[in-house]
């Protein structure tokens, strides 16, 4: 075998590998206003989220993730993308991210929330063709929804 798809696999963007290895937003907050947890019973992966709110704004957000590279990087890039957003905006990003993971044509959500930019989270687009791994990237967002389930936007 001379060349390997592994190294140049579109799914594992360099950014994903880097964030999985050295997350920039990992850890816990001393006094989080809300918390959430996502667990995947199929593989034992787990994300815990601590969020500090300032009014409706996400002032700080930290994650503690035990999981694969996809899950770990998704949590880290999610935290990065959502810091400073309002709760409502954060949930719009969540919708937009979920739409990114399914076929673009099949979702009306894409149109509706198209104005919400995903930024670096776009690196997860190739997951569309790895159905078995979509849950890995969704896990931190499950934790986010749990954290916000008691907050009115």
């Amino acid at each position: 075998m001379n060349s390997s798809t592994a190294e140049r696999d579109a799914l594992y963007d360099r950014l994903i590998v880097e964030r999985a290895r050295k997350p920039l937003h990992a850890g816990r907050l001393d006094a989080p206003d809300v918390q959430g947890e996502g667990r995947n019973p199929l593989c034992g992966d787990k994300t815990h989220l601590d969020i500090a709110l300032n009014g409706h704004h996400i002032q700080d957000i930290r994650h503690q993730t035990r999981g694969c590279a996809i899950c770990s990087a998704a949590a880290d890039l999610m935290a990065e993308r959502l810091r400073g957003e309002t709760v409502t905006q954060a949930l719009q990003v969540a919708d937009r991210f979920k739409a990114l993971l399914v076929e673009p044509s099949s979702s009306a959500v894409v149109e509706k929330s198209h104005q919400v930019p995903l930024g670096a989270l776009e690196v997860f687009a190739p997951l569309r063709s790895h159905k078995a791994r979509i849950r890995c990237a969704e896990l931190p967002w499950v934790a986010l929804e749990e954290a916000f389930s008691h907050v009115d936007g």
Partner: protein
Amino acid sequence: MATHTAKSPAASQLDVQAIRAQFPILAEKVHDRPLVFLDSAASAQKPNAVIDSMANTMRHQYANIHRGLHWMSERTTEAYEGVRDLVAGFLNAPSREEIVFTRNSTEAINLVAHSFGALLRPGQAVLISQMEHHANLVPWQMLRDRAGIELRIAPITDDGDLDMEAYKAFLADGKVGLVAITHMSNVLGTITPASQIAEVAHAAGALVLFDGSQAVVHHKTDVQALDADFYTFTGHKLYGPTGIGVLWARRALLEQMPPFLGGGDMISTVTFERSTWANIPHKFEAGTPAIVETMGLGAAIEWVSQVGFDAIAAHEAALTAHALQRLATVPGLKIVGNPRMRGGVVSFTMEDVHPHDIATLLDRNGIAIRAGHHCAEPLMRRLGLSATARASFGIYTQKEEIDVLADTLVRIRDFFV
């Protein structure tokens, strides 16, 4: 029945290329690469002998069985019952009536939990081990919750062997009615000392069931030599089709046990008030069975027997030894378990690389392995892991494929570190 037969091997050498030529799927490409299939422990690929036998059944000799008075039905019944003889021979069962066809191993174990479970009394216990597949755990939990049967779990050692001292201790109070233990672990590859397990169980007044789902594939099985009371296996891991499995049990037990499912074929007489049961094994085979799949299982058993278990065991032992040695050279790789006897299954973890990432990246290179908890969550917890990657080998596995696996793992690790 089998139109394609394996070359009969000189001594116990196996001609892997001749074997591979009989598995059409091995010529397929995955992501433009040759398929390297190292997931036979989950389900094995099928040789032409099996594929053709099933297709020929549907083309030339098919009707419902045990019901028709016509020629087609009689011939199909004969062929179907012929497979029962083959299975009895395959397990060296004392009689063909002790072979019950089920959907898979899971259903066979559920049958025992339901029907033998009905003979157990509250206060009695079932003893399993820490390395059971969910198929040999959940049915016993259900029995426990339904019938007040205690469920005991015998521990394993850090190497992944059954802890025989602890096992004996669990039997000491004489309350255990049944020991149900795997004959080979699907995660650790451990081949358990079945005859010793049976001897100890019998001395304590317990019967013993072996989950042979993994074991029957790798070596010759002899339920009489093991002194087992129940034995189960599943067709699809034995190069046969899905949808067909086997329960073997001693005649006296099957005769005592109440039926599992009710319906056609399992009765002797039926009135609106009551029914009487058919003789064994039919008492346990309600409804139209998996006729075509049973023919496929028969073809698989004939085919495997023709290759011969001496050759298969030698081939797989060589592959496993090679894999253990090659994988040990991959930086950061840790092999899970170090059992005294191991079949063709190797689980591993890699520092800094999650098993799911390993599996996805191997797949991009055409290499199929399994990653996850392998339907053995409590075992994972015992090992302090949430998941492992697992490579498993079969009759068609080549040494070179293990080299490709090891080389690719080195690159995957480089990619992540």
